[in-house]
């Protein structure tokens, strides 16, 4: 586990930002502690990017206060920018500069910069060092974009959907890099709409929707807070109607996800037993039974009535 200390490196209090009549950020408060990987989780338009950009000093809040590394990002942005690393949602790169040139260039904007070769190596970009950024693959661009966020050896990094568009392998390797960063006692604030990412990577998450923080805590806390049940899943079958399933012992709710039926139950063995019995009666095969603890996805669904990816 990352060495998380009690010192807050980010503290946000009643932060607000509106665009016209849209309240992009509507009075949110949270703290991030040193060494933590903190995730802002929510669908597109939830206000994650606006929040992160206010903390980076790229956007001015309408109300409330924010402090990053003890500085006010709105008024002490120049001093703050020396110490933070930023990765925007879009890999914003000069198309006609090479990987090496871009890392070297960004390094020159800071008082202290890490050696280019070190970053090339760390992000497995050494084979593409002379490639123009426009020639890179999506995954390579994303890695370069994160490498640029680390060029000044920052105390904390802001990553806005860092793994969007990455294949699973590239995603896992980026998680590993973030864990290494956190293990050095440095802080990460990231946004994501991948549940798995939040569950695997984040020490704590805040679930955002419509500019509000709906829930905040560790993944375990959030799941335990919302669900006493476990879920039993199987491939849906016409003969297994919702009415019939709802009568099974322990089942509190029947839901459907893609081709699967999801039973929420407080008594897993009894539910499975009854289900198998039903299957035998109806001579069903290939139900593909699985038992799962509810996920953040379920928490989000129960908080908003919508699936996160929608």
């Amino acid at each position, binding site marked *: 586990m990352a060495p998380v200390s009690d010192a807050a490196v980010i503290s946000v209090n009643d932060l607000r930002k509106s665009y016209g009549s849209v309240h992009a950020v509507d009075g949110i408060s949270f703290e991030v502690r040193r060494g933590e990987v903190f995730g802002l989780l929510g669908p597109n338009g939830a206000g994650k990017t606006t929040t992160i950009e206010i903390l980076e000093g790229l956007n001015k809040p309408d109300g409330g206060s924010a402090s990053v590394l003890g500085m006010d990002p709105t008024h002490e942005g120049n001093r703050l920018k020396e110490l933070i690393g*930023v990765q925007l949602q879009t890999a*914003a*790169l*000069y198309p006609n500069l090479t990987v090496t040139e871009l890392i070297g*260039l960004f390094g020159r*904007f*800071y008082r202290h910069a890490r050696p280019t070769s070190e970053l090339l190596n760390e992000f497995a970009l050494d084979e593409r060092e002379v490639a123009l950024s426009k020639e890179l693959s999506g995954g390579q661009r994303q890695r370069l974009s994160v490498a640029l966020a680390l060029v000044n050896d920052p105390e904390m990094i802001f990553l806005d959907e860092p793994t969007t568009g990455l294949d699973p392998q590239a995603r896992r390797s980026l998680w590993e890099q973030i864990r290494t960063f956190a293990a050095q006692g440095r802080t990460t604030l990231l946004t994501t709409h991948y549940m798995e990412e939040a569950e695997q990577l984040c020490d704590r998450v805040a679930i955002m929707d419509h500019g509000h923080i709906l829930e905040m805590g560790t993944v375990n806390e959030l799941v335990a807070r919302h669900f006493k049940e476990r879920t039993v899943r199987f491939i849906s079958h016409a003969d297994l109607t919702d009415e019939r399933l709802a009568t099974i012992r322990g089942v509190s709710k029947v839901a459907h996800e893609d081709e699967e039926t999801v039973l929420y139950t407080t008594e897993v063995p009894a539910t499975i037993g009854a289900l198998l019995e039903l299957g035998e009666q109806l001579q069903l095969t290939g139900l593909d039974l699985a038992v799962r603890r509810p996920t953040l996805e379920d928490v989000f669904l129960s908080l908003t009535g919508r699936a996160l990816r929608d």
Partner: protein
Amino acid sequence: MNMRGLWPLTLANIKSFYRDRASLFWTIAFPVLFVVLFGSIFGSNSPSTFNIGWVDQDGTPAATSLRDGFATVPLLALKNETQDQALADMRNGKLDAVIVVPQGLGAALTGGASAAGNGPFQLIVYTDPSRQTASSTVQQVVQQVIGGINQQLSGTPPALAMATRPLQSVDLSNAAYFVPSILAMALMQLGIFASIPLVGQREKLILKRLNATPLSRATLVLSNVFTRLIIALAQTVIIVAIGALMFGVTIVGSIAVTAGLVVLGAMTFLAIGYVIASYARTEDTANALTSIVQFPLMFLSGIFFPIEFMPDWLRPVAAFMPLTYLGDALRQTMVGGAAYAPIGIDVLVLGGWLIASFLISARFFRWQ
């Protein structure tokens, strides 16, 4: 002010520029193509004949036989004119040079004047010094003819001599007109085309990404200015070199003033480029706006033909265009071209456009 990153960013901008084929074409290849094309079509390197205005103020048989002497030179086509008419024709480009035979030739050749010890009688030759080939050919021919006559008369001291007078022609068929004009056009394109990568960088969120670093906005703008100025100087060297090597057009005026005008012109059109970037949201819009601004400037600013050739109703438009004044100032300074306005006015008008454009873009330019 924190200027860290200024030179690395300028260098990066220049690299981005020369790796972008489109910008390289419009700012370097396109004007070079124009100079070569127009120079070759209209400002032929070695014309077969030169049109000469013949002004006979003497009217004696001696003058007539002198004319016959010149008429035998196959390079020259003589045309009898009054002095005013001849000089006007030369300014308009109908004549390449004017030879004036002042009154008193007959008397001088029959011995009166030279016997009186007034020195040799002088023929006055008007040539355009910015057109080296025409100018030197005509002068050589005149010298040879005079030499022949002096030999025949075998008098000492020589009876005839030549006095040359410079006269700038606004000849369409004159590479000297095109070289400074197209340099002005190239500077205009360099400046307003700057809007396209700028809007592109905003659209691609590069400006936003830079804003997340300690790089200051002043440094960013200054770096763009330096980038364009460095490219402008490169353009100037290339265009002037081609003018000199291919068409013999050399800078007759002050190089320092020329350089100053190049800088002023580049800055003015760069500021106009920033105005375009203030209004264009996407790179495509910037592209379209750039064309909309570019073509009227190109054709209504006396770049391809002098403003005197324009219909009357179009002239006020030309008088409004900043490129009119940059072209005019560069022509006057580089090749001693006929003035559309005094250089001071040219500089004032350009300065006015620069300041106005700067204020507009300072007010309306969006970084995100």
